[in-house]
């Protein structure tokens, strides 16, 4: 193996070492635990940046230089094989960044700090695993293992209704991934149990397009059936329309940092799954279902926006807004054009940053107010005149808000524009309708902003203090990212261009 090829291992296992470290630090030394976790994530983030710097943007597909491939279960040809390409790299850097910031934002956690940080670092490790895995079995294992820390993080440190949310999240995702498991095993046989029957890359291409299976006498296409299986598996994570209802619960109940990770990274896993597994393995089927995906994406956009507008809990509002924004990603994926796909991946990244900002800000606010009502059930204002009370906070909030509603010059716009450019040729009607979603997106955010920030400071807001140094410190990187990638997206786009292009050109032959 080359010298640099252990980099992925390092990125993957550094958080895990962090977990061990946390376990060995005695419970009483809380400060030490916090700093340890922070340093650990910081190192991880630096490593991801190193990875970015060593990344060769001209190479489409996997970067051989980084690949790691160690036999795991030889009798099944299951390998511990990691790799990185232009699609996963942005996600990886995003993960590194967000986890670091979330650790900083979790400074205020007081309940069972040890367990919290241990689980959090463990979560990071598993997330990296999902993005690195090139072996379907490994991917699945990480995909599932990730649920355990999430379950506990939501269930122990969450809000008043946390258990319900945690269980719901767990069951929902598990339901999807079981179907994925069936699909995986079926693929294992369909690919002839060969040396690379779990190797995702080897499964790529339309190897299964003309297989058929018969259920109850009706012959149906293998690829179509199992594309649907995988689709459900991933769609639940995204979440795509009929499977979205876990999201509001999970987001609202989860502690700030966790909902940041949930919205910023975990949702992206669903779409990443499409790009890495569902599309390349079943290109024919994915082209066949493109219309359905597009319509679902449209429903996400519109429906999410409508629901968001009706919310009186600001965190729930943002949760629904990310349903709506992930809808854009689905649209981009449905387009299967260079613009659409690149737009989708970019949107995955940008939504990661902007929605993370939103959730962090809401968390900051919550630490002061201990409630999240825009309008209380009794109709009284929950917040008012924050603009006057918290000037710094408001400025950051404005940036976040306009970024997530896609104001040009901030990151959201370019990805959405690309997505629209991508889908216009294919689905004009859908484009027109989706643009309404753009409109609504602005509407609910501005309305929320108006109700919370304008006007006179209401009595209970008078006591709030503005952001402190720590909070500013972890908001700044996101602000920078949002602005810089809004003005000059090339650093992200160049990385993904080749890999996405490869995928698109492969899909285009179907």
């Amino acid at each position, binding site marked *: 193996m080359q010298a640099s090829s252990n980099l992925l291992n390092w990125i993957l296992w550094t958080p895990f070492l962090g977990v061990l470290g946390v376990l060995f630090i005695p419970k009483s030394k809380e400060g030490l635990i916090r700093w340890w976790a922070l340093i650990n994530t910081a190192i991880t983030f630096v490593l991801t940046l190193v990875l970015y710097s060593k990344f060769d943007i001209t190479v489409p597909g996997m970067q051989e230089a980084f690949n790691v491939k160690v036999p795991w279960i030889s009798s099944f040809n299951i390998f511990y094989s990691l790799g990185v390409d232009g699609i996963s790299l942005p996600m990886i850097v995003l993960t590194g960044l967000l986890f670091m910031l979330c650790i900083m934002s979790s400074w205020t956690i007081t309940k069972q700090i040890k367990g919290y940080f241990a689980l959090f670092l463990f979560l990071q490790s598993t997330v990296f695993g999902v993005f690195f895995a090139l072996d379907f079995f490994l991917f699945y294992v990480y995909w599932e293992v990730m649920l355990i820390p999430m379950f506990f993080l939501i269930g122990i440190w969450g809000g008043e209704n946390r258990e319900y949310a945690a269980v719901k999240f767990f069951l929902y995702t598990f339901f999807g991934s079981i179907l994925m498991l069936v699909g995986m095993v079926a693929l294992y046989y369909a690919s002839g149990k060969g040396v690379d029957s779990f190797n995702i890359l080897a499964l790529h291409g339309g190897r299964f397009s003309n297989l058929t299976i018969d259920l109850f006498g009706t012959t149906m296409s293998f690829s179509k059936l199992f594309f649907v299986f995988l689709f459900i598996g991933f769609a639940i994570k995204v979440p795509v329309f009929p499977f979205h209802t876990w999201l509001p619960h999970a987001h609202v109940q989860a502690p700030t940092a966790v909902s940041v990770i949930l919205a910023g990274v975990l949702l992206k896993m669903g779409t990443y799954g499409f790009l890495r597994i569902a599309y390349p393995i079943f290109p024919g089927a994915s082209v066949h279902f493109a219309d359905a995906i597009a319509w679902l994406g449209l429903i996400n956009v519109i429906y999410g926006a*409508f629901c968001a*507008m009706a919310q009186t809990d600001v965190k729930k509002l943002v949760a629904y807004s990310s349903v709506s924004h992930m809808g854009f990603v689905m649209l981009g994926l449905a387009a299967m054009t260079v613009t659409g796909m690149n737009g989708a991946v970019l949107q995955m990244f940008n939504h990661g940053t902007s929605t993370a900002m939103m959730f962090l800000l809401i968390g900051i606010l919550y630490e002061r107010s201990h409630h999240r009502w825009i309008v209380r059930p009794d109709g009284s204002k929950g917040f008012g005149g924050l603009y006057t009370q918290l000037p710094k906070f408001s400025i950051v909030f404005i940036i976040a808000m306009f970024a997530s509603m896609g104001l040009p010059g901030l990151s959201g716009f370019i990805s959405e524009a690309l997505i629209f450019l991508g889908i216009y040729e294919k689905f004009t009607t859908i484009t027109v309708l989706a643009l309404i979603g753009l409109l609504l997106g602005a509407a609910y955010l501005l309305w929320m902003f108006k109700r919370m920030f304008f*006007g006179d400071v209401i009595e209970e807001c008078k006591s709030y203090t503005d952001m402190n140094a720590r909070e500013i410190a972890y908001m700044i990187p996101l602000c920078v990212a949002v602005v810089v990638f809004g003005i000059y997206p*090339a650093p992200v786009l160049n990385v993904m261009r080749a890999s*996405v*292009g490869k995928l698109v050109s492969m899909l285009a032959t179907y």
Partner: protein
Amino acid sequence: MEYTISTIAPIVLLPFFAFVINAFIVKRFTTLAVIISCASIVGSFFYAARVFFDFLNVFSADYYIHKTFTWFDLSYGSFPFKMDMGIYIDNMTATMLFMVTGVASLIHIFSTYYMHDDKRYGRFFVYLSLFTSAMLALVLSENLISVFIFWELMGFCSYSLIGFYYEKEGAGNASMKAFMTTRVGDVFFLLGILAIWSVVGSVSFVDIYQAIGMGKFNGLYALGIPLATFAGFSVFMGTIGKSAQFPLQVWLPDAMFGPTPCSALIHAATMVAAGVYLSLRCYPLMEAGHLTTFIAYIGGITAFGAATIALVQTDIKAVLAYSTISQLGYMVLGVGVGSYNAAFMHLITHAVFKACLFLSAGSVIHSLHDHHTHAHVQEMPRMGGLKSKMPYTFLAMLFCTLAIAGIPFFSGFVSKDRILGDALLMALDNKVYWVPAVLGFGGALLTAFYMFRMMFLTFFGEPRDKELFDHTKKETLSWNRNLPLLILSLFTLGAFYSGSLTGQGFIKVAGEKYEWFQTLIEKPNLLKFNNKESQAFGFASNPSSETFQKSKYDSNHGLSAEKAHHVHHVHHIGALISIVIAFSGVFIAAMMYFWRSWNPGFWVSLFSRWYRALQNKYYFDDLYIKGFIQKGLLPLNNFLAFVDMGIYDRYAVDGWEKVNRVMFTMAKWFDNIIVDTVAVDGTGASVRFFNVILRTIQSGKIQFYFIMIILVLTGYIWTLNI
């Protein structure tokens, strides 16, 4: 000098850097920030002036600078995709640059007077700088995408500046209303961009012109509509939103919540005009899409309707706001009737005098300070007789009012009259255009009336609020209050724009050089772009060597002699009509508010229903907010949200668990009930079947299990032997 992106950039970048720097230092060094802003904009003004005069004197008429660089490139294999950014400067751009920077710098200077005592003095300049840079960038933009980007950025600035006094609840509403209303237009605009891209494969103006010239749009359809029409309409919707045309005009009056200088800059001179600028840029598309009639109607309706509403306003800024809408209506009308350069000329002249009007209004409002409410007064009923208090302001305002009212020798007349003349011309050709034309002339009458009404109410007569009047102190000449006003009012003279001061040349100043505007601005000549060489980043196309080779001003406008004669004839009639109209408007206003021989109340009572309609702005706000949003949108949202969580999630998703519980309880029930009933009878039956004599039989559970076994076995066997 070589015009490349890097040499043009400072025009935009100076204010932009001012914004960036100020954003950080404004809290601590407010004064410095203000100085930086003003300095930067003045600097870019001189820069723009340089560009403008080069275009005026050095370059040939059809010379344009088109430079691009790649923003990002997604091409892969056989899938090309490249997003270019760059600059496109032709005569129109140069003129715009000159106007925008000029007006902007004057307004900056005025703001140092107006905003000085405000507690967010510095922040105001931060927004102002950002806005200016955005506007300049939009003007320089080479393609529609970048136009859209800066277009939205301006929208953001306007949002922030309308909400500048965020302590006021109303400011929140107004800013949101403004942003959302324009956003409606913007979304269509984006759609238009998509549609154009799908045909041209780029949205650079040059490519679009070329594509239209080569008829690429012909025979293409989107959603069953001819694609040119589809795209043109969508783009024009952008104009409707930004330039507050009917039916999206509702936001502009509310925008007056912002500080007056920002109203002057954004909501009068530049941003709202950008809409018109866009539709001028895309004029070939509008033509190709046969949208001109539609545009003319929109313009006419807006021009007239807004003017009527302006009649009944008592807030001085509101009057100006509606007059802005109405004037924008004229520009759009100009676009509609194909008087390209008149429309643009009106854009420029209007920018100058409307900016001046707002600033004057600002200086009036600023000096009227109510000591009870500690607020500035902008209600005309409380003014009156201010001429004596603030003579310079009065002078400036008078000039502008004359201009906007369309009195000869003033810029407003020159430009508006041409638009009306062309409208008349079109009407004579084609009956359809009668409506816009008549509306236009009617609007002119009303304009003259309400503007002078405003003048009389404000400056003449007896002061109606004595106490306020007395508290107001006499205006003293100060550089940052009066200088901008006076300079701007100077430029309301028609001579700066055209040699023929009374419209189509009754009085002609000799020399075609005075018709620079005519010669400079002409409809984009599509043939010109058919063989455009793409100019890479940084390379200047060498300007034509010959010094002043403008396309000679041709009084026939390139028409045949008798056609031209006809045109002139019509134009003369138009000019006459508009002069008469203007003066009669002034006269009526004087009769009502100066000599007070006519009682406005009489007219009000005569048209009372109309009066109410006007006061309620034709009930548009009610329709949109009460009707559409409160009755339509919000209930829908609440319903959907309820369905999502209350029904779908509660029953469909969590239902599975209940299903399980039901199955479980059924199983229990099965064991408990069925055992004691069915089992008993069943065994009874079976036993009787086996001829075993037995009496009443009770069954314990265990026996029921046995029954189950037997039943299942028989069932299996039965199925298997089929």
